[in-house]
């Protein structure tokens, strides 16, 4: 895992612009090359992938590899957030939506009303890490403690075994699938005995526009806590072990613990298309799900599908 100083978030729209300048040819429905690892570049055309900031590093690598294999293909990737991606799919401004949460019932209804039929494809798994500053003595938290921190009921680190210092809880903004996933699974404690669907993020929680910014603030600020995807964890921050309840053992986020199901805050990373994908888009997704594609998942820091 490498340190990300650069703000990919700004670079990606530029890449999108660049890619968009290349002419779009939309009629390659006939090319159904199901073996994308062949170097024969029968596939051509361009499409866009918009959505989750979390999935973006993975999608970018896949898109680069796929474009190397098929030089006539252009893929534009941008990562404003899962909600933004789903909105783009409904509004017809993207071909693939990348998401770090499942689509909501209300969004399916909005999509159907707009004549869009969302088709879900799991492409990888993510362990949502909870990170703090390396100097923070706290090394594990229960889901209930995290919930109390993010609802604003616990405001000092000494309430969870740390120093006497205020807690700066950092979240993503509402564009983000991670925002919604964390709210449902951690803040509202989905599936636990203490589940409470009325809980919301406290109003002192910082909502930042990108995952990189959250990680960089935690790296600078000993009071801060944030929840980036596994692929964004750098050496400058310390991941916490998560306990489902106070009686369970703490589990650190890793590829292994996410795969064997012991890490409590793991989630699927998804692609949504309008109907079952065909042509060039099918070619791309087949590549993502192939052994070569899944091997890239580990390289980027996420967890491959089983």
């Amino acid at each position: 895992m490498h340190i990300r100083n650069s703000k990919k978030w700004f670079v990606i729209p530029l890449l999108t612009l660049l890619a968009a300048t290349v002419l779009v040819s939309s009629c390659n429905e006939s090319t159904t090359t199901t073996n994308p690892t062949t170097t024969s570049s029968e596939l051509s055309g361009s499409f866009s992938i918009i959505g989750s900031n979390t999935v973006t590093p993975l999608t970018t690598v896949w898109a680069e590899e796929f474009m190397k294999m098929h030089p006539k293909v252009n893929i534009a990737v941008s990562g404003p957030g899962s909600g933004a991606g789903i909105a783009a799919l409904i509004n017809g401004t993207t071909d693939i939506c990348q998401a770090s949460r499942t689509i909501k019932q209300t969004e399916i209804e909005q999509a159907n009303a707009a004549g869009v039929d969302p088709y879900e494809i799991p492409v990888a798994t993510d362990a949502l890490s909870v990170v703090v500053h390396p100097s923070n003595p706290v090394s594990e938290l229960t889901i209930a403690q995290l919930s109390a921190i993010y609802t604003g009921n616990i405001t000092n680190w000494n309430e969870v075994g740390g120093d006497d210092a205020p807690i700066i809880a950092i979240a993503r903004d509402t564009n983000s699938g991670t925002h919604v996933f964390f709210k449902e699974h951690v803040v509202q404690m989905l599936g636990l005995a203490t589940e409470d669907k009325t809980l919301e993020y406290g109003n002192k929680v910082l909502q930042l526009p990108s995952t990189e910014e959250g990680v960089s603030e935690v790296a600078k600020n000993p009071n801060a806590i944030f929840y980036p995807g596994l692929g964004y964890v750098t050496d400058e921050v310390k991941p916490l072990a998560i306990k489902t309840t106070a009686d369970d053992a703490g589990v650190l986020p890793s590829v292994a613990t996410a795969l064997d199901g012991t890490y409590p805050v793991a989630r699927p990373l998804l692609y949504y298309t309008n109907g079952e994908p065909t042509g060039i888009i099918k070619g791309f997704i087949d590549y993502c799900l192939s052994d070569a594609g899944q091997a890239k998942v580990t390289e980027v820091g996420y967890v491959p599908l089983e």
Partner: protein
Amino acid sequence: MGEKFIESWIYLAGLLTIVVLLGIIVLLVKEGVPIFFNTPPWEFFFGTNWYPVSEPPTFGIMPFFVATLWVTIVATAISVPVGIACAAYLSEVAPDKVRETVKPVIELLAGFPSVVMGFIGLMLLSPLVQSAFNLPTGLAGLTAGIMLAFMSLPIIISVSEDAMRAVPDEFRQASYALGATKWETIWHVCIPAALSGITAAVMLGVGRAIGETMTVLMVAGGALAVPVSPTEPMMPMTAAIASGIGNAVRGGLQYQALFTIGLILFVLTLAVNLIADRVLERQKRKFQR
């Protein structure tokens, strides 16, 4: 004949701006106002909870409004005195050589992209503010306000310097002839004489501070509480629009709510300009006496 052609051309250009302006107002009202069928205006303006992605969603924009107020106050409090002092120095004190080098540099500063300013705020200023004020985090309205002050300074300096230079030299000569010092001349003659231009400069600066988006999105912190002090993390109106619009489905409730925030921003800047106009008028009359 040629004269007529150019006249109608200019007339059309003038008309176009008005048409575009009206179009924007109509669009903002049309897309935004339906939110009041869901959330009554009272709750919308004075509500303190903003949960657009919850079921059911809640839309209260008080936190954003107060945040914009704080950030603008901080920016104005810093940029106006510094800006006017700098303009007075450049116009009245500095030798020609200094002015001719410094002024273009300051004007160049105005061209800095706001993303760059946001990045500087994030990496350099926020740790400084955090340690200087002993805050739990440096991502706060204060940091955003200071960055905005830097961003509106070039406009304020440039426009008020022009205004002061336009004050006729006879005014200064007369002042010196009465035995006034340089400082007294600047304070009692040059600044009052250039007041209309200075007011315009300040208003341009305030307008920039209210409308600036990228920088506040990056450094203001984005907390949804109603901020009681500028040292708290906060989310001004522009940041609220930017961080929510990507997620909003066209015609949905959040979309409407964000358009209404846009409408309020528009009304706010309009009000600033109208007030400025009034003040200007009154000052002018006072000065004539």
